[in-house]
């Protein structure tokens, strides 16, 4: 059986917490942006689409650097958030969650957008004639019909957040117990003599977690689509 040291456990626990918080915070924004991209007709839509996908194509180090500039204690957004809400991102696990969320965001938005585009708008009209106001139409028809896409996006974002390395280490460094996730810990262990065993254990954990997320995605996706097509 796999015996993890307390320090390794800390990295695992931290990774899971960061990925969960990142995904949970990203989800409402992901649905909103996905909806705008699928349904919106406005000037600058292409720009928004490009911005959303930017973390996918930029070197992660660049994303991390930009986050450091904007969300650091002296950055425009970071200073504002600290002054008004007391939120600190720099060198904290919250910053790691922000970096992971930003990196996972394009993977979250894309399936949601596609699912929303695939919805038969006439069903929403039918709901309206049955007395549902626009908000109720969204929550009782649009959102449930987009559920398979939302589930896929959430799992992809979670998996991406779990493995994020470049942007996180650039933005919030590699502090054990605060910002040292599984990936960062593996990297660190590989830099020190006799670190191979510890790195190997964390590699196994990373594989198990990723596979679990993948299987969960498959299972949830099937369940969601069975709701529409099955008994």
């Amino acid at each position, binding site marked *: 059986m796999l015996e993890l040291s307390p320090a390794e456990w800390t990295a695992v626990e931290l990774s899971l917490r960061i990925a969960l918080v990142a995904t949970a915070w990203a989800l409402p924004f992901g649905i909103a942006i996905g909806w705008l991209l699928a349904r919106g007709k406005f000037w600058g839509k292409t720009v928004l689409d490009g911005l959303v996908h930017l973390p996918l194509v930029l070197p992660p180090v660049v994303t991390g650097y930009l986050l450091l500039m904007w969300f650091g204690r002296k950055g425009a957004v970071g200073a504002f958030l600290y002054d008004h809400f007391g939120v600190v991102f720099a060198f904290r696990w919250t910053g790691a969650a922000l970096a992971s969320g930003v990196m996972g965001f394009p993977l979250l938005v894309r399936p949601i957008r596609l699912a929303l585009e695939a919805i*038969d708008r*006439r*069903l929403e*009209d*039918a*709901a*309206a*004639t*049955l*007395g*549902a*106001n*626009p908000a*109720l*139409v969204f929550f*009782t*028809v649009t959102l*449930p*019909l987009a*559920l398979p896409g939302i589930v896929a996006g959430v799992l992809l974002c979670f998996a991406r957040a779990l493995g994020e390395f470049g942007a996180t280490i650039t933005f919030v460094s590699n502090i054990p117990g605060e910002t040292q996730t599984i990936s960062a810990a593996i990297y660190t262990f590989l830099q020190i003599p006799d670190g191979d065993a510890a790195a190997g254990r964390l590699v196994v954990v990373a594989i198990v977690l990723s596979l679990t997320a993948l299987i969960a995605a498959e299972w949830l996706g099937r369940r969601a689509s069975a*709701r*529409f*097509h*099955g*008994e």
Partner: protein
Amino acid sequence: MIVLALEVEKQLGALRLAVRFQIAGGVTAVFGPSGAGKTSLVNMIAGLLKPDRGSIVLDNTVLFDATKAINVPPHRRRIGYVFQEGRLFPHLSVRQNLDYGRRMSGQPRDLTEFERIASLLGVTHLLQRRPRMLSGGERQRVAIGRALLMQPRLLLLDEPLASLDAGHKGEILPYLVRLRDEAAIPMVYVSHIAAEVRQIATSVVRLDEGRVLAAGGLELLAEAG
């Protein structure tokens, strides 16, 4: 008594829809060839399509008036709509589909009425199923029940038999006739098939190329040939 008074104009691509008529109770057939603007017309009554000009008045309530900038949104019109393709919600069971209108408008649960409509349309044994598992005829009966259970002031039926084969058409018509005779809900029945209209309608509005050719009794069908 006038139930629905309507005078609307709308440019739809090459077709200019300019229609004016009034209906009393019973079943009014909007009868005409495809492309005459029938579906656009009922969409305007339901509030899904906005006319360019004119007014729509239901039971003395103004639903639309271009000059006064009144346009009641569909969810506040309380007009039942049975679509050509049913449009049942695929993620909900038959029971939840039937119950949808009541839930959305926040009316209290009325089990007696629910069971009365469900048995009137012969869908009691289907309540637990998903729309996917229904035949075309069953789907349309559920769609009719769903529209009825929202307690509409007016029921619109847009070629409700069009998507069904001959055998299933015969399965639905008797239900509609019963509905006409038992329920006091005025209906607008859109169709291009004279035989269908003859069985169900009490009055006829003949529509072609966006205009009303004639409005009156069933004798108008004979003229149509």
